[in-house]
């Protein structure tokens, strides 16, 4: 809540400066102006790299990239306080308005990994939720052997952890007793060494995680096709939002994100390209 207010205050103050300083000569001379992008924390790193690449071909535009949350970004965009909203989920029917245009730029995903010796290859969403929030403490409760579960988690600030807490745990924290790993590689090493461990990684880390098994969720395995089709349950659509259909730098930025160059950045960020 605080962060949201901060973002809105920031966005409003930037615009206040902008509009008081605005004059015709300023616009006519194509002087510097700023382009504000804000919203989903999951998309922060992606948006920063996209913005840096975009500003190379648009040197007169100062790119300002903020997080603050998907909803805060949407509200700020509707108020005209920012230029591009970043949303890591679909808009609800209530949030949607005709002048809000959501462009899909990428899909994000989290894979659940276990030790290859654990005789489990598929779990239901409810079981995974209970494993990560600590309701299930023994594999027996999830159809496995009688042995205590060891949950391995990435550190706070990781987008994959954010995904687990937002999407899998419905906004709740991962069990406090989880072993923390500093990287996906470290996480998969810990899981590979403990037959009763469970953890999570994202698609980009699969190469460094050949030693662990990525299990099916609700019977669906994560693959490029099941992520793009969104059938794999732990998939997140990433949208850039524009207000209205006026041409300008904001629309150009979104077009850049969807261009081959922008989609290459999407892949480099470990996300799935969709354009």
């Amino acid at each position: 809540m605080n962060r949201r207010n901060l973002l809105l205050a920031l966005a409003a103050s930037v615009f206040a400066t902008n509009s008081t300083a605005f004059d015709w000569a300023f616009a006519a001379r194509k002087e510097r102006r700023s382009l504000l992008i804000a919203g989903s924390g999951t998309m922060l790193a992606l948006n920063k790299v996209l913005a840096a690449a975009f500003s190379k071909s648009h040197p007169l535009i100062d790119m300002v990239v903020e997080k603050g949350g998907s909803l805060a970004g949407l509200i700020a965009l509707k108020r005209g306080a920012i230029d591009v909203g970043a949303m890591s989920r679909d808009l609800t029917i209530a949030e949607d308005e005709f002048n809000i245009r959501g462009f899909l730029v990428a899909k994000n995903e989290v894979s659940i990994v276990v030790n290859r010796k654990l005789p489990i290859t598929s779990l239901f969403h409810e079981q995974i939720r209970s494993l990560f929030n600590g309701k299930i403490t023994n594999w027996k409760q999830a159809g496995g052997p009688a042995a205590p579960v060891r949950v391995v988690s990435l550190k706070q600030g990781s987008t994959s952890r954010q995904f687990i807490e937002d999407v899998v745990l419905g906004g709740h924290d991962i069990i406090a007793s989880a072993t923390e790993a500093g990287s996906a590689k470290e996480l998969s090493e810990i899981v590979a060494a403990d037959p009763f461990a469970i953890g999570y990684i994202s698609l980009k880390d699969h190469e460094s995680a050949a030693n662990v098994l990525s299990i099916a969720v609700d019977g669906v395995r994560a693959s490029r096709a099941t992520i793009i089709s969104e059938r794999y349950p732990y998939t997140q659509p990433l949208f850039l939002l524009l207000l209205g259909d006026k041409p300008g730098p904001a629309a150009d930025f979104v077009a850049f994100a969807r261009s081959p160059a922008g989609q290459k950045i999407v892949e480099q960020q470990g996300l799935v390209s969709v354009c």
Partner: protein
Amino acid sequence: MSKYACAAAFLLGILLPGSAASAQTGGERKAVHVRGSAVFMPIAQHIAETYMNERPDRVVALSGGGSMRGYKSIIDGTADIALVSHAVLPELKKEIARRGLTLVSATAGYTAIVPVVHPSNPLASLSMKQLKYIFSGRIANWKDIGGKTAPVNVYVELAKDGIAETWNDAVLGDGGTLTPKAAVISAERRIQLVAADPAAISYLPLSEINASVKALRIDGIAVTPETVLDGRHPVRSPLMLVRTDKASAATEEFIRYFIAPRKDFHFAGFFYAAPSAKPDK
């Protein structure tokens, strides 16, 4: 102040032309973005994955949001195909005209929408007239239609969902209104409520029905591919793929692929229209 900001942004947009046109197209796009009806998402996902597996250079990205979102997205240029179960609503027609667009629609198939009750409910079939009376509130007790003495609890879909419109059009008819006592609840929750409430009645698309509830026949007609495709089962919802006349070649190619006749194709709750629409010569 925010009005100033908007005006400033608007004027900047006009005064700084930039490369605005590139927002719409950047060469021929190969990716196809599909948005729309949640009910038809499983079949669309299945077809899209098969397509991408056959043609690894293609991308067909799906997201839900309902039929309205689907239409909105093809009109405002944020998606290529709308996956919808009803015709475009009048409120969007002005916007379509303003943008000089024409919508082109293709029907891939149908799902049936089926009345559902608690498994203990002794009834097996209801007539369309009985359904109309129940959903409009004229019949409010199960005993009036041969059931136990208990008030009827009516659960319905969210009004903006295409399934709700299809049901209301078919069952209530023109000018019919839903009983104010009906509880509006999402499909996911509705099936749980009906499974737990012996006095409940609701409706669900065939694909979302499981053994926890009892599906009723309408006018004694069972749901089969034949009765749904020929319209004898009176409540069905079409799966339409809608694009604009400015769609990319990749979009048109995927639509052709989607609606093409498939032999021995089975997908829970969905009946392909193509074989009957285009009979073998």
